[in-house]
């Protein structure tokens, strides 16, 4: 089985978000970038499937050269090879086009990715890739198993879950509790250095959206403290002052 895992490069979850003074760009100064946590769930599950069933795991990233440390990390965790599409990922459709092109070229059985990136929170790329390839997407998935050419997927729905059986090839997006992310070991880090990382040029420049401006939400005006012994007063305040009950 050939698995393609799409990863994006995002600010670490503890990052304090700031923008350049003109509000046009995210301020990357001093920011640590990581593999998007949702993508990491997809990556770990892909590696588990490979270990159980055989096959290969290829990681794909649409990004500029500064994403390579995290691509190497994915290789250290256990992916076999990697593709970097040399393009700044500014638009979901633009990214989906790249993934669909290289996914088709590699004839993968399973295309995995996280449900969304924690920076732009589009939750769009999965469906776009499925549509471009003419195959189903199952999102967001919390469990994934493969038996021969059939995948069994549990999809989270609002208020429950569904079990879906579908024939490969498929696009599946991951969220918890799909897998427990792994920390690369020393052997993994050593072998990752020599695993193939192919840099390819983008196909098309067909963006459908463009970001004009970023802004932080207004700061909270301050917290009103209620003494613990009068805790019941809180409920009255929520009804009469905040008017939310």
């Amino acid at each position, binding site marked *: 089985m050939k698995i393609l895992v799409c990863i994006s490069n995002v600010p670490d*979850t*503890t990052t*304090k*978000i700031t*923008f350049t003074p003109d509000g046009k760009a*995210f301020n990357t100064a001093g920011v640590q970038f990581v593999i998007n946590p*949702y993508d990491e769930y997809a990556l770990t599950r892909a590696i588990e499937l490979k270990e159980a069933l055989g096959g290969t795991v290829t990681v794909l990233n649409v990004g500029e050269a500064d994403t390579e440390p995290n691509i190497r990390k994915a290789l250290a965790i256990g992916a076999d090879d990697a593709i970097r599409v040399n393009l700044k990922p500014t638009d*979901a*459709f633009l990214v989906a086009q790249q993934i669909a092109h290289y996914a088709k070229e590699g004839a993968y059985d399973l295309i995995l990715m996280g449900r969304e990136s*924690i*920076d732009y*929170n*589009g*939750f*769009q790329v*999965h*469906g*776009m890739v*499925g*549509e*471009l390839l003419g195959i*189903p*997407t199952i*999102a967001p998935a919390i469990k994934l198993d493969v038996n021969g050419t059939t995948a069994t997927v549990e*999809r*989270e729905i*609002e*208020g*429950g*879950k569904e*079990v*879906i*059986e*579908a024939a490969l090839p498929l696009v599946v997006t991951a969220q*918890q*509790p799909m897998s427990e992310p792994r920390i690369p070991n020393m052997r993994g880090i050593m072998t990752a250095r020599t695993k193939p990382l192919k840099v390819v040029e983008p196909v098309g420049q067909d963006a*459908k*959206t*463009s*970001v*004009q*401006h*970023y*802004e*932080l*939400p207004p700061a*909270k005006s301050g*917290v009103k*403290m209620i*003494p*613990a012994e009068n*805790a*019941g007063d*809180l*409920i009255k305040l*929520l*009804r009469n002052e*905040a008017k*939310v*009950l």
Partner: protein
Amino acid sequence: MSVLVVIECANGEVKKSSLEAASYGSKVAAALGTTATAVAIGDVQADALSGLGAQGVTKVLLDNDSRLHNFVPGAYVKVIAKAAEQENSTVIVLSNSNIGAAIGSRLAVRLGASLATNVVALPQINGSTFTVRRGVFSGKAFSDVELTSDKKIIAVKKNALEVETTAGATATVENFSADLSDADFATAPKETVKQSGDILLTEAEVVVSGGRGLKGPENWHLIENLASALGAATACSKPVADVGWRPHHEHVGQTGITVSPNLYIAVGISGAIQHLAGVNSSKVIVVINKDPEAPFFKAADYGIVGDATEVVPKLIEAAKALDK
């Protein structure tokens, strides 16, 4: 040409998030000098849909093919694409739900449309270009995004906008069919597991959430009883889901569920930046923590310093005393 609104239903009723989408779509339609048409799929009767007139919808197309009672992305997209074609719609509005994201992303490719998800405000319309504000960086910021294609799809964030209601107005309901074949249902679910009786976390107006300050699952009844007294949904922090006190689908935060209720009550949650990301678009935040230095107090509107096991019973008592 009309604005097309995609309506999701649950238990025979239109979801609140879809009322928000309908209200949004009607306002966009008014700005464009046209009308709003809704398309509803699934297990719902015409009576429940005619009420969408109150949100400014003039017509509802209903496809009640029983195979559509479960969500099947390919089939749903086919129905909506056909409705968009019939209505000559260049703007499609849906809810930023799991279903909305699955439909919107495929539909955007099929129609060659620009797609914006997680949208929190009405568009600024400048000729054929829309600029919309959407939540980014997991609720820590906003971005203004230009949608440049002729066709636009907008997925509206839950609870971000008020539902406009004009009492007494009704929409006409027409039956609609997209002539689906069995192949469109290839990924139909084999089994659906519902959590019965619970209030949907993502739809809830009030959420009571617990963290490690509860000390153990044996104290979870405090969260449940407070939620039940307030008509709220329950949630938890990531550490609580990770240790298995509560299931992962209740975990709110950056890598869990994002909620934006009117009221979020956090009990025994310190307020790590990852947790705040999932809740900071809530309108009012209450924090109860025994540590006065807990970072969550900085993001809160109301706070109580105290032990959950002592504070929460007082809240339950006061909540029960409220007249409904």
